């Protein structure tokens, strides 16, 4: 009732959903593109998996679906950035700050919506992967969920950390796109982990995508259940926590950010 934190959060979340629905294209594109790429690359992924010793009954979706899902999820950092920077472009950030909502509430509400969008994107890609490309999960679907949730959280937190550290949306988008590609490569999302070049192997554990792909591979290819993915899921939680700390340390509500202009 009245002017409570919960009420304000609800209002902020509803507002972000309205804005998301007004312009769903960026999210749709990042969901459709991995499926398109998957359609062309499936035979290549199958050959790569077989060359890596995965046996003859793989069809390529075991690598392609989680790989493309992870890669395009990281591109979502752009969506996170835009969701924050547009408030500066519209001059509404100061209006929000002049109200009773705490700056942390403004961040948290945005996080809720973006996290939901990330989870939705992963869900659609995995479900479409099963229906269109015959993805079979040899282990547990629940294990996939246990990896997907902290993955989505760390991507959104990475986006938030970039928002706090970048002054302009173009800086953010350069860094986000490069990071997304590097993480896709290091994590074994672009190519199977078995086919990764030697120079990249030592760097792989520093990429959150590496842990995500380890967890997904465990459940999809190796018949893993929830206990088998707890390590990668835990590391992803640590990534998310570290990035949340960076965000909180460097966040200044009064910082001017340059959107378009």
């Amino acid at each position, binding site marked *: 009732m009245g*002017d409570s934190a919960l009420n304000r959060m609800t*209002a902020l979340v509803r507002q972000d959903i*309205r804005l998301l629905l007004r*312009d769903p294209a960026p999210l749709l594109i990042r969901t459709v593109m991995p499926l398109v790429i998957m359609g062309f690359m499936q035979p290549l992924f199958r050959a790569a998996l077989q060359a890596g010793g995965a046996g003859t009954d793989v069809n390529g979706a075991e690598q392609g679906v989680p790989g493309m899902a992870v890669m395009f999820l990281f591109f979502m950092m752009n969506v996170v950035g835009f969701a924050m920077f547009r408030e500066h472009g519209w001059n509404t950030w100061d*209006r929000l*700050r002049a*109200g009773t909502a705490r700056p942390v509430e403004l961040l948290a509400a945005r996080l809720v919506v973006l996290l939901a969008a990330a989870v939705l994107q992963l869900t659609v890609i995995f479900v479409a992967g099963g229906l269109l490309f015959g993805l079979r999960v040899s282990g547990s679907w629940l294990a996939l969920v246990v990896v997907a949730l902290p993955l989505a959280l760390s991507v959104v937190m990475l986006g938030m950390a970039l928002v706090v550290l970048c002054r302009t949306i173009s800086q953010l988008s350069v860094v986000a796109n490069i990071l997304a590609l590097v993480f896709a490569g290091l994590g074994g999302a672009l190519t199977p982990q078995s086919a990764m070049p030697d120079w990249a192997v030592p760097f792989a554990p520093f990429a959150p995508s590496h842990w995500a792909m380890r967890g997904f591979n465990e459940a999809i290819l190796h018949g893993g259940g929830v206990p088998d993915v707890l390590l990668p899921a835990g590391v992803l939680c640590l990534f998310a926590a570290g990035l949340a700390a960076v965000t909180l340390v460097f966040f200044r509500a*009064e910082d001017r950010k340059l959107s378009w202009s």
Partner: protein
Amino acid sequence: MPADRRPAGGAAPGTPALSVRGLRKSYGDTTALDRVDLEIAQGTIVGLLGHNGAGKTTLMSLVAGLRRPDAGEIEVLGRSMARDARRARRELGLAPQELGIYPPLTVRQNLRFFAELAGLRGRAARQRIEEVAEPLALNALMDRRAAHLSGGEQRRVHTAMALVHRPGLVLLDEPTAGVDVETRARILAHVRELAAQGTTVCYSTHYLPEIEELAADVVVLHRGRVLTRGGVDELVRRHGDSAVELVFSGEPPALDLPWPVTRHGDRLRVRVEQPQLVTGRILAALGDAAAGLSALRVVKPTLDSVFLRLTAGTPGPDAGEDRNRDERTGAVRHG
């Protein structure tokens, strides 16, 4: 309950709506505000008058808690912005100088968002949205996207968004900058209505006729300092340049009068307190030269002339730089 709260938000009747003491703010080397004191009584309108760069926007953003002052105290209806920011902000509605709306959303959605943020729901929110939309003539635009409105219409939405939560103190930073005549009239009329209902309005502008129209108390801000404060009539009486102006068909004659006389081409200007009482004496002093007189005018002082006179050649805060620095050490820290 926010929905049926009195505009003054429960503050004691004598409490000023805004009390600012010793406010200072610098951006690097630029002193934007220098020892500003300002008190605004509940239910009144104060026009904050100043040239570009005078510090109006800085003052409003400090009051709204968007920036921290270097020194000084701010209280909104008795609540300190430094110690009790959220209670102070609840009483405050800011319509910033720059248009701040959500272009992809409709007018209704823009207003509803701010109503919901203030804790209004369902019927209460709808009713309140109607209440702010009506006087600003937004009813017919409610389902249009803000991006598709004219500049004046957007400005009215922008202003309405600052009012939905029924603030006791409304800060309007140049609310009529760049709008059409109709929007200007609407906004001015609504400001008067707000004050009549007990809401306090602080209205910044560099456009003098607006202040005269609002019959507001004027605070003249110049280079970060409050130069003077008073009612329009009072300021005009105190600082106005009233005069008798004489236009000649040829060369103006020399005049011997106890008042200052200045010459501008074919005319003479006699500066006097009450020009209507002395025209006879001036004509007498003209003597034969009165034949060459083609017109005589009593020049009434305007707020314009008061403003120009007050702000001409006044040293800025930078002039007292060293002194400022000494005093800064003993300044009250804010925040």
